[in-house]
């Protein structure tokens, strides 16, 4: 399914970003749709820790991951498996929760990019996501 890019405030230029409506689900809890960034440069998916709190999830504090970003800034994150609903399709993916509430919701490569064909066509202000069959 094709999705539009979003124009968001930016300096020195307005930003054009591939945001996508995602519903995070865990057992009976669900979020309202959240605009998450589809980020091919991110190894894994991230979300703020208080999203896990809202879903009533227990994150695995034994398996923390130090997420290293630009300038080697490190944020400690904890994994938890959630269901993310995209275009009516459910995907079970590990998400690393951590950081402050302003940590960006990111859908990264592992394993989401193995579950869907994702094509960025920024020159047309669009990107597409198509669920693929799971490898045997």
């Amino acid at each position, binding site marked *: 399914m094709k999705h539009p*890019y979003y*124009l*968001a*405030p930016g300096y020195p230029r307005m*930003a054009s970003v591939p945001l996508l409506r995602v519903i995070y689900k865990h057992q009976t809890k669900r979020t309202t749709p959240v605009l998450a960034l589809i980020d091919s440069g991110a190894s894994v998916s991230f979300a703020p820790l*208080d999203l896990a709190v809202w879903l009533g999830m227990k994150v695995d504090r034994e398996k923390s991951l130090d997420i290293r970003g630009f300038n080697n800034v490190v944020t400690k994150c904890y994994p938890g498996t959630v269901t993310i609903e995209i275009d009516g399709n459910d995907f079970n993916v590990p998400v690393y929760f951590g950081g402050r*509430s302003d940590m960006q919701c990111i859908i990264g490569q592992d394993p989401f990019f193995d579950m869907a064909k994702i094509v960025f066509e920024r020159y047309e202000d*669009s990107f597409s996501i198509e669920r693929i069959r799971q490898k045997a």
Partner: protein
Amino acid sequence: MKPIDLTTLLQKNKSGWVAVTEDYTRVVAHAKKFVDIQKKVKNKKNVVVVQAFDNYYNYVS
């Protein structure tokens, strides 16, 4: 495809979370924390929440 323009909707909020109508015409609520924005919109339909930043252009992962 026509991009969706959030610049006007996000003009007043530089941080936290913003809830907007799903046709992206109106801000419904704002809160500092994700938990708080969810509480504010949990009975509202056709709402989307987005993180507010003053600058989306300088993001790198």
